[in-house]
């Protein structure tokens, strides 16, 4: 039974390592430098815990086989080993805390750095089960909005009609278009329940909370169309609350805005 247990644990360990290693190739493309930094930290972490995984499972399997019960064998009468226990704790603690601090560097760049001066600000407001996308227009100022004016068809964000700042605003549904190579700040909110704006290609995700406007910054490196699944359970249509991030060349983006305003 000791041998069988050792073989089982060995096989499970080997299979897990191979499968996790292969999974890396199946991850979504990397659309930003920040996404690359997240992946670098992820791979460093996976390698570290992979080594610990193989070591611990290996010892478990080896000990189970090596010390399997036999007539005439006497177990060691030991109650512990202080140096081993303290030493291993210190080593493990140093490794874990180092990972936490390194992991916080990418986080700090995303959430604590000052926004770049030419940042494009876009409001994204979730509702069951769609994303309303709000551009400030040429004046760069968002029009005021009032929840009592919400109308699903004509005024999904409840923009106040006599507010001059709102006249040139552009509102689209489910498509967030951004220019390539320019810093973008999304200001995320919600009309009803929690949602989460998740862009796998950017390796970022931020819950949207009614009553709050939460900034999320990124800079897309190349053009293309990327899926935005909702990542916070928001009701029966959660699975089909799908947005699209379109990264366009600067001139295409300008033309797109004009076209959206016309519609």
């Amino acid at each position, binding site marked *: *039974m*000791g041998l069988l247990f050792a073989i*089982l644990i060995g096989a*499970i360990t080997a299979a897990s390592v191979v*499968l*996790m290693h292969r999974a890396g190739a*199946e*991850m*979504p493309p990397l659309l930003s430098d920040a996404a690359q*930094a997240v992946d670098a930290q992820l791979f460093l*972490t996976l390698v570290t*815990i992979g080594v*610990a*995984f193989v070591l611990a*499972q290996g010892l*478990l399997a080896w000990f*189970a086989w090596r*010390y399997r*019960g036999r007539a005439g*064998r*006497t*177990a*060691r*009468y*030991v*109650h*512990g*080993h202080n140096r*081993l*226990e303290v030493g*291993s704790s210190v080593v*493990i*603690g140093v490794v*874990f805390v180092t990972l*936490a601090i390194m*992991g*916080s560097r990418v*986080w700090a760049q*995303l959430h604590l750095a000052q926004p770049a001066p030419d940042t494009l600000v876009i409001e994204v407001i979730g509702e*069951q089960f769609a994303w309303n996308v709000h551009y400030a227009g040429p004046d760069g100022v968002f029009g005021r909005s009032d*929840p009592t004016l*919400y109308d699903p068809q004509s005024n999904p964000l409840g923009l106040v009609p006599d507010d001059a700042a709102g006249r040139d605003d552009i509102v689209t549904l489910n498509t967030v278009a951004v220019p390539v190579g320019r810093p973008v700040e999304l200001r995320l909110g919600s009309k009803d*329940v*929690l949602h*989460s704006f998740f862009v796998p290609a950017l390796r970022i*995700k931020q*819950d949207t909370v*009614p*009553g709050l406007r*939460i900034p999320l910054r990124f800079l897309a490196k190349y053009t293309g169309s990327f*899926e935005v*699944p909702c*990542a916070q*359970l*928001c*009701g*029966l249509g*959660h*699975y089909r609350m*799908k947005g699209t991030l379109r990264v366009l060349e600067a001139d295409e983006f300008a033309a797109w805005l004009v076209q959206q305003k016309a519609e």
Partner: protein
Amino acid sequence: MSVPHPHSTSRPQGFLGRYVFSTDHKVIGVQYWLLALVAVVVAMLLSVLMRLQLAFPTHTWPLLAKIFPTGMSSGVMAPEFYLSLVTMHGTMMVFFVLTTAPMGGFGNFMLPLQIGARDMAFPRLNMLSFWVTCTAFVVLMLAFFVQGGAPLGGWTAYPPLSALGSIAGPGEGAGMTLWIISIALFCAGSVLSALNFLATTLGMRCKGMSMGRLPLTAWAWFTTAVIALLAFPVLLAGGILLLLDRNAGTSFFVPGGLVVAGKLIDHRGGSPLLWQHLFWYFGHPEVYIAILPGMGATSQILSVFSRKPLFGYRAMVGALVAIGLLGFFVWGHHMFVSGMSPYSAIAFSILTLIIGVPSALKTVNWLGTIWGGNLRFTTAMLFALGFVSLFVSGGLTGIALGQTSLDLYLHDTFFVVGHFHIIMGVAAVFAMFAATYYWFPKMFGRLLHEGLGKIHFVLTLVGVYAIFVPMHIQGLMGHPRRYYDASNYTYLTAAQPWHVVITWAAVFTVAAQALFFVNLVWSLRRGPRATANPWEATTLEWTTASPPPHDNFTADPVVYHDPYEYSRPGAPRDYIMQNDPPGAFAEGSS
């Protein structure tokens, strides 16, 4: 009728008094254990339904249409029915299985026996705790049968979704109200039970049973009771506030200006994040409420069947206490992307990885316990070794999820689902299996069938890894959790075949559990009769008959030895029971 007995410990008469409204900790322990068994069967079947939907999202199931005429009316599962399965599976497993069996079940039965007491400190309170918990389960099950069905907001019940009533979705009306009442009852029952465990451990130990001689299991139940006493009242308060928001017009969790389904909501001034703080202030310690008793049982069982003293007893107790304490300072790691301050996220992240240190120390000491041993591979031992393997696997992925920047990608994906199912789900379940195979002879007087048990172990170990390792792969692909159907998303095309693999693995694993139930039923009637101490173990529960008499011991035991004295050189046999007289054995020092 017998003459009134001077002690309250006289055996009660009649079926009701003996088996239903009993104050005997052993009967109550079995009641909790049976409640968990019922809950685990229901919750497991719910998960199979979920797996069928995930693997074959457009498939028509005519048979299921007959069983669930509303949720699967045309044979295809409705999205709200899928989400109600998610909610109920999680709620039942977390509360009525992972909290109920390790503490209420094994803790109730074994704690008084292990410390040489005749019963718990407050037997009537103990009975009340069980019946409140049992009522909570019935109330929860009722949610399936009310208008709109069971709630669809997940076991975390985040507002505003959970606070707005049926306008937010089916199941958020009466079903959600029943869910809150059930959880509030459960909290009350758990607090009463925790008080009882603390009073029993502190006040009812027999002569010689100092805290330093407590078995690790008793230390684990004690620490768990402290955590439960501090954590459950917070959830109870949160639940009451949520109930008031829904039914009394308050706005603790709902901000102003909400428009739901085209209707302006008449609430203002609340904060959805407040619920998350209250919930996870309970919710993270709850993970340790589920796993610490399993750690205790594993420590115990590894020592018994390695025929070796537990490696680093003091460090193991210290690690339990450290985990219990630190467990109250890490709840924010569930909220990195919630909109909480990014500064506090960094603090929570570092504290979270620090809690990995006592957890890793426990693993080192479990490996130290089997190192140099003379291992007896009973089924209980195999499940305890399986627990160590799963604890390592699930713990290590926590090192990834505890980091702020990795949560940006991995939070709310299947990586999280795989992680917590391994560490909190199946690791804890393996410890419960280990405890069941180990203590069944004491509880019922007969041994379980070892051959069936070993086959059950092998199939379950392979099965659970085959279910939950692929979920990590789907998580790395960015697959969000709680999705009824992922086929809307082209980037998830490669994840779909894994859903099929996981579903078959789940069906296989669930089918393998039939062996366990066959073993239970067969062994209860036909299993070999258990002697007082079939495993040649040292702790006090093995000094009395199997099953123990009503008052546990024929004479109050006196303890002279540490709990894990195996293979002491010069001793006449390879174990020294805690109450063996001191003269017969020379007290050696390690």
